[in-house]
């Protein structure tokens, strides 16, 4: 017998009943939060034309995508995230005149790399057509609320703003490659190499100083003052003001304790255009959630719409919740009606009644054993 017959592909996984119940519970709680906040659920195909994911500004890595061909030789890709497909759908099928609040729970795909699964479930939202501190705060507060409702206690929402870095870079005359190198060093908080690289570039003393400060420009609300004081120009000032406004709104939600600010957070920099954020928690070394403002993506699909959103990694959520609480759900009990051919009709009738009351029922004709306590055996007259 082939051994592969007994295995699942690398980076995928089965969800047997208990694991599936836990996954549905977490997905359900988060989905409910999204719906309560006025977001409408949508679905898109699991695979799309590769073109949906190919633009200059997107973070998709070609070699990470799982690709195949349709019958006419066109390239298809299993969706690496939901944002691209939702942008495509919004641009082609929704009325651009209003604000769209969309949410989803679905699987995303890619070749397994590092801790990244090949098939992962994400629950997320997109707020399309709005640009304001209120919109940014709405999305971040919903992210915080979702984690809280799912039962997470100790976590931080790490907030950055890429416009601050872009503001410093404006007018330096550095080419894309140099900017990318500096971005990468700041994002990895590699002050040592940053200092060395900057010393080799022709930059003004104030620009160099601002860049050198960036890796350490993280912490609580005090960071806003520090960032404001050293803002190089109006672009940087506007970026700090935006984070400050968002921070104050989040304080009104009572979420102050969950907020951490980091102006050196610069991941997926070309994709995001404003506030970016990620949810992190003790006990899991990778982010549980990531998101931000991406005002340029929709124009790739022919509609210049402003947008922000986030995606929660359900697999990461399950890992961290299980680490803290162990078993997450008790399986719902099932009633078993034992019956014989002569009282079958009564038994079927009884089962129907019980199902109407929301009970789970099995009709049993051959007297199999059912393990207590999940199964409760009931007799009919």
């Amino acid at each position, binding site marked *: 017998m082939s051994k592969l017959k007994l295995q699942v592909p690398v980076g995928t996984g089965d969800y047997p009943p208990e694991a599936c119940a836990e996954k549905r519970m977490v997905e359900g709680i988060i989905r409910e939060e999204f719906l309560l906040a006025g977001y409408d659920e949508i679905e898109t195909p699991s695979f799309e034309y590769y073109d949906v994911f190919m633009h200059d500004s997107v973070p998709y890595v070609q070699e990470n995508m799982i690709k195949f061909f349709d019958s006419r030789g066109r390239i298809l890709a299993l969706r690496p995230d939901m944002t691209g497909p939702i942008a495509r759908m919004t641009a082609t099928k929704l009325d651009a005149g209003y604000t769209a609040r969309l949410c989803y729970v679905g699987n995303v795909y890619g070749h397994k790399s*590092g*801790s990244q699964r090949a098939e992962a479930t994400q629950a997320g939202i997109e707020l399309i057509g709005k640009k304001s501190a209120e919109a940014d705060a709405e999305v971040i507060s919903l992210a915080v609320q979702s984690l809280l409702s799912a039962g997470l206690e*100790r976590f*931080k929402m*790490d907030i950055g703003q890429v416009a601050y870095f872009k503001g410093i870079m404006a007018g330096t005359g550095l080419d894309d490659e140099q900017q990318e190198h500096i971005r990468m060093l700041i994002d*990895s*908080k*590699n*002050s*040592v*190499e940053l200092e060395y690289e900057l010393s080799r570039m022709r930059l003004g003393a104030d620009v160099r100083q601002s860049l050198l400060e960036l*890796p350490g420009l*993280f*912490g609580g609300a005090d960071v806003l003052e520090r960032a404001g004081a050293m803002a190089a120009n109006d672009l940087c000032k506007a970026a700090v003001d935006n984070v400050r406004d968002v921070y104050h709104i989040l304080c009104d939600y009572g979420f102050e304790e969950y907020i*951490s600010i*980091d102006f050196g957070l610069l991941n997926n920099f070309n994709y995001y255009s404003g506030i970016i954020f990620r949810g*992190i*928690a*003790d*006990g*899991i*070394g*990778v*982010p549980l959630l990531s998101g931000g403002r991406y005002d340029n993506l929709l124009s790739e699909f022919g509609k210049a719409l402003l947008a922000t959103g986030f995606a929660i990694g359900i697999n990461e959520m399950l890992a961290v919740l299980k680490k803290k609480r162990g078993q997450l759900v008790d399986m719902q009990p099932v009633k078993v009606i034992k019956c014989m051919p002569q009282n079958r009709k009564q038994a079927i009738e009884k089962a129907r009644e019980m199902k109407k009351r929301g009970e789970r029922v099995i009709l049993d004709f051959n007297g199999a054993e059912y393990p207590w306590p999940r199964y409760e055996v009931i007799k009919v007259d």
Partner: protein
Amino acid sequence: MIEDMMTIALAKGRLAKNAIKLMDMCGIDTSALKEDSRKLIMYDHKNNIRFILVKPTDVPVYVHRGVADIGVAGKDTLLEAGLPLYEMLDLRFGACKVCVAGYADVVCGQEITKVATKYPRIAKMFYDQRGEDIEIIKLNGSIELAPILGLSDVIVDIVESGDTIRENGLSVLEDICDVSARLVVNQVSLKTKQEQIKDYIGKMKGALENA
């Protein structure tokens, strides 16, 4: 308690010895690490720190996955792992270079160059940048043997003094990058254990400046 404990991953061997010296200067109690034992987990209970001793190439893995908050690893190991980590301090010890070495008179570029190395990712990145096609032969030790026996045209390896290279009749053809020990921090831990980690990084910076 364990949630607030800070876990430091150290690469077994020379890097660990230097890291211990540095930690001593920062008021960390490393006495458990100096004992001759086979324990893989050790504690500084006073400072609520846990040390784990792992294979050098595993340090970035432990830190990336968050089971260790902080790690000390060579830049070569970090480049080879290519994982997202905060690389916050250059600890300066363990200094060497990653180089291309081989016979000085070998002419490359006509056919596909065969490169023997412990660092396939670094080698690939280096030759990709130049648009040169190579075939990588992954070895785990005694890399210098490969060109001597004709297994490869060149090697990509770390070179400290260059003695091993020279004694085997090879020479350094090109430098790829400088290497030294780095302090890496898990991206989540830096924010969730901010005070503690900032405190130690500050102390280590001070100790390095005074050294």
